[in-house]
């Protein structure tokens, strides 16, 4: 289905799938009028990870505050909006329900259409704020919750061609960080620590079967944990910077090679990277090098749009809106959800 993406639109996006309460107003799918986020990182740090019940409680506390901030900063009124887009899933169910029910209440009271959005498509569409999408394209979405390769032939059409069989890449970052005694969230900590180290330790790379586009990070995670235990047992002082650099090297090599392989196979005209892990400096630089070598344009969103936000949900919701995707007031949040249905 061909969509006229040049149409004028004004969409309010709402995102509460994990630990950020977010709302944003996006114009024409490409212009961020406002992007309000309330992060709970500081609240969950003491638990060493996101606690679903705690996250859900904070969403209720923040949801109207953040929506008000998004509306005020955008300079628009409810009458200017064409639709409300909300993350339906995947994510933590209790957290999702706050956003979904809040969005339904707003849609009802203001008589606005409601557009359900798949969280991963949001991450992909964060790239449209940087560059117009060129099809066919390959998108790598890597975060604490996901590691997926998605192929797109046109706007609003998604096919998962590779996914993780165990841990998400971001999960591996968090667990390795914990092993090294670093605080949550582990990604930025590992990245910082790796700056001063050399990738001198040969940690495994899980390529899986010949030609597979799937990922596996639990073996790597275990290898790092075993290495640390062995070193400690031998009474060696841990060279954490080298461990961090070597681990990061292993993760980024697998991510980059599989993405490039997929891009070549699909004859992609563009490679997109999105999700929290795309903030990692090693993943960014290696991906840039490889894409340049292959001559395929690469788009990575700025750091602020890599992590969960609602501008990306509004951007993907814009495409859903133009495609005619509509939910009624019985819309429910879903912890797991197929991207192909969006």
């Amino acid at each position, binding site marked *: 289905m061909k969509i006229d993406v040049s149409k004028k639109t004004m969409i309010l996006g709402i995102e509460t799938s994990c630990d950020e309460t977010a709302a944003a107003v996006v114009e024409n799918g490409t212009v961020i009028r406002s992007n309000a986020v309330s992060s709970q990182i500081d609240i969950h740090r003491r638990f060493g990870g996101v606690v679903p019940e705690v996250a859900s409680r904070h969403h209720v*506390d923040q949801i*109207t505050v953040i*929506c008000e901030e998004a509306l005020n900063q955008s300079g628009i009124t*409810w009458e200017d909006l064409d639709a409300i887009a909300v993350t339906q899933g995947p994510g933590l169910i209790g957290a999702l329900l706050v956003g979904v*029910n809040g969005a339904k209440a707003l849609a009802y009271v203001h008589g606005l259409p409601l557009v359900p959005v798949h969280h991963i498509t949001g991450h992909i569409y964060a790239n449209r704020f940087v560059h117009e999408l060129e099809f066919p394209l390959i998108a790598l979405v890597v975060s604490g919750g996901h590691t997926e390769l998605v192929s797109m032939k046109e706007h609003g059409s998604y096919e998962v061609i590779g996914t993780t069989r165990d841990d998400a890449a971001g999960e591996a970052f968090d667990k390795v960080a914990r092993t090294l005694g670093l605080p949550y969230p582990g990604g930025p900590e590992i990245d910082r620590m790796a700056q001063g180290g050399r990738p001198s330790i040969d940690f495994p790379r899980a390529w899986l079967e010949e030609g597979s586009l799937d990922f596996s990070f639990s073996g790597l995670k275990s290898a790092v944990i075993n290495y640390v235990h062995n070193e400690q047992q031998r009474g060696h002082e841990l060279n954490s910077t080298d461990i961090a650099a070597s681990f990061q090297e292993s993760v980024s090599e697998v991510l980059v090679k599989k993405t490039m392989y997929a891009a070549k196979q699909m004859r992609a005209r563009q490679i997109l990277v999105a999700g929290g892990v795309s903030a990692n400096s090693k993943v960014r630089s290696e991906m840039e090098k490889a894409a340049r070598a292959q001559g395929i344009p690469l788009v990575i969103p700025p750091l602020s749009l890599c992590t969960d936000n609602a501008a990306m949900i509004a951007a993907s919701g814009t495409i859903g809106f133009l495609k005619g995707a509509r939910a009624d007031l019985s819309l429910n949040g879903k912890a797991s959800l197929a991207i192909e249905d969006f």
Partner: protein
Amino acid sequence: MNVLAIDSSNLVMGVAVTTEDKVLAELTTNSRKNHSERLMPAIAQMVEAAGLKPEDLDRIVVAEGPGSYTGLRIGVTVAKMIAWTRKKELVGVSSLEVVAQNGRGFAGYIAPFFDARRGQVFAGLYEEKEGEIIPAAADRLVMIKDWLPELRKCGRPVLFLSNDLEKWGKLIAEEAYATLGESTQNVPRAAELARIGLRKTPVSDIHHFLPMYLRLAEAEAKWLAKQGR
């Protein structure tokens, strides 16, 4: 004044639209718990049945808990959103106080409760004074084996109202002072919720209005215990 009352705090889901002296529309279900799917359609249906539009609502009254955490969040989120975005009044009412209304006319204490698992109940204690049901004690989370002896000491008849009598009724019936509610008395009515909400002062800060969980998140409780607090 047009009031919208919302109760999704427990298995019962109730929605009512009323004025000060008239119930315009009311819906109660007591079977399935997919409140996330059914609450907003029910609100739209009741407002329409009352012959109103969303903008005609003046006050939103929500059952604030105790109850199911997820259920509470659904009702409170919807109530907050409507009140905030349309600049309407928001009132929170104890979910137990709503059930207690069904004990009107009983000479003694009215003790509504909800099962809270692990032998615990969310319990309230109310009594009728000058025609109004008023709290005799604060709502609490308590072990039922502690709650029953405490009530015994009061030396008054107690009417137990609960949708969870199936689970606890046999144990309670052993108490000489106890009367168990009839099926129609055990189900909270959203129109009663609206009526109580009309008497109360609206919340001053809609943004930070939260459900009355009466229990910390488990991780939070464990963390605090570890800090030795």
